[in-house]
């Protein structure tokens, strides 16, 4: 019987949300191709996380001192050994920063190419088509694997719905890869946070968020006025913070804050996935953008297609008037 093998990441011993999404994707893929599901995670087999992988018929705990801190060399070698043992048809990963770092190397070692950042799949004419975004979400591409198994896939955050973790009666088997300390060529340091946070975007009920459409630092007051009129906090996409126009603590997205306000008003933001993962949970999304095809409109509740330099002042005036 063929196997779909999914690799999960754990935080404090339990699988992360995006890992459970990848697990759900792997379960779907296994079901649609009549394969069995196998799951693997770094950690000790007695850890609590391994009991949450209900639905997998094989569970592996990758255990080795050299895997305690992530390194591309360590993970690549360990995962290659488990893949050689399991001989899966498909190998799935959550598309995290770690996976981005080592999975292309792992695929290359196996003579394959990772299909990265997949948002969905469908069976078509005897093969499986994988969807992924191109041009930062402005276009979708359909891919298929033309090489023999295994086919490696990483799954985008939020693309599959994670089921509530189910208890399993399958005990995790310890898999101890053979690793040499001398083969690990990088020494990772302890993770640290940049600056102390002084604004708490996550608890602000209303956010006005500004993107590169604002064009120049001198135009920031335009959106600040709208935020003030609404009683909202100001947030931003990454390029705005990179440029130093707003402090980094106001950045929303995968490398910034995750927010879920009642209202998220995106001004001149295109809607790249790294931004969307940080604000998709908002109750109401409003987008102002001059490009009617901007991906932000795919997730917006209300949209205004137009020049922000005209729409924003009009909106500020209308809000002031409504508030009296």
């Amino acid at each position, binding site marked *: 019987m063929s196997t779909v093998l999914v690799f999960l990441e754990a935080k404090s011993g339990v699988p992360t949300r995006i890992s459970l999404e990848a697990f759900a994707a792997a379960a779907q893929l296994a079901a649609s191709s009549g394969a069995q599901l196998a799951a693997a995670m770094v950690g000790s087999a007695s850890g609590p996380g391994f009991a949450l992988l209900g639905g997998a018929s094989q569970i592996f705990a990758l255990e080795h001192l050299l895997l305690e801190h992530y390194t591309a060399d360590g993970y690549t070698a360990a995962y290659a050994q488990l893949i050689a043992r399991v001989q899966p048809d498909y190998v799935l990963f959550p598309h995290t920063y770690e996976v981005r770092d080592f999975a292309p190397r792992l695929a290359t070692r196996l003579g394959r190419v990772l299909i990265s950042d997949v948002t969905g799949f469908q069976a078509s004419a005897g093969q499986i088509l994988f969807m992924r975004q191109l041009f930062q979400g402005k276009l979708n591409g359909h891919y298929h694997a033309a090489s023999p198994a295994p086919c490696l896939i990483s799954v985008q955050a939020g693309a599959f719905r994670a089921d509530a973790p189910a208890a399993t009666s399958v005990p995790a088997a310890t898999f101890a890869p053979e690793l040499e300390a001398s083969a690990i060529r990088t020494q990772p340091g302890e*993770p640290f946070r940049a600056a102390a946070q002084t604004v708490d975007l996550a608890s602000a009920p209303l956010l006005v968020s500004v993107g590169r459409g604002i064009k120049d630092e001198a135009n920031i007051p335009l959106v600040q006025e709208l935020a003030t009129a609404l009683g909202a906090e100001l947030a931003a996409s990454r390029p705005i913070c990179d440029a130093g126009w707003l402090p980094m603590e106001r950045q929303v997205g*995968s490398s910034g804050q995750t927010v879920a306000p009642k209202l998220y008003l995106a001004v001149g933001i295109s809607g790249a996935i790294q931004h969307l993962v940080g604000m998709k949970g908002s109750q109401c999304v409003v987008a102002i953008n001059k490009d009617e095809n901007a991906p932000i409109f795919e997730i917006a509740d209300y949209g205004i297609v137009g020049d922000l330099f005209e729409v924003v002042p009009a909106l500020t005036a*209308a809000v002031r008037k409504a508030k009296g």
Partner: protein
Amino acid sequence: MKIIVAIKQVPERDARIRIDSAGKWIALEDIEFRMNESDAYALEEALLLREAHGGEVVVLSAGPERVGQTIREALAKGADRGIHIVSDALSGYDALGVASLMAAAIRDEAADLILTGLQSDDLGLGQTGVILAELLGICHASLILKIEKSDSGIRVLRELEDGWFQHIDMSTPALLTIQSGNTKLRYATLMGIKKAKTKDLRVVEAAALGVSATPCVLLDSVALPSRQKTTQMLTGTPAEAAAKLVEKLQQEVRVL
């Protein structure tokens, strides 16, 4: 230090996306091209390192004839020489194929450091650099913001999720994929543009590099995304659209 920087030419950020008649890629007529954003930051890091420690910066790009213009732009900004892998059919290669071409073209250079962008703005694979490192048998780190020389090699600053960072110490030769935004980019000076014309640009035919073009992964078709949500578009003049939105914010979203 000898540093190679891989730069890719991609469509302009605000380019209008239309699908070509075969449904396999976007129509490229009337499209302006530019250097991939994170590659521009990779080039900047390389130039800063050379200014601090000496050495040579070599830019590498694979693509059709028009890519030469992006290479010249990098030379004008200060790169010392360029390598152009010429191919009109690069889309026939997958990421492993493109990285194999690049590996074949630079293996003999024995660079200390190879920098690539984090990901290309068109394909967005985020893979080519990491694959290249494996093909060359050197170590790598991705999502890098800053590079410093250290006693034993280099120390780099890596971005993690949710606003976290870490340092990584590593030996050279190494490959780094560079994240956008950590520095200000320089402009080419008039002098630089003049000088660029005389700099060495090695042109290699892709076909001469002995790389198999049989891909593992194929892009079958492209399509415009469909809306997941039913977005209510508020139309009219800016004042009309603004008034409609305020009404929604009052009556439906109830935040005003």
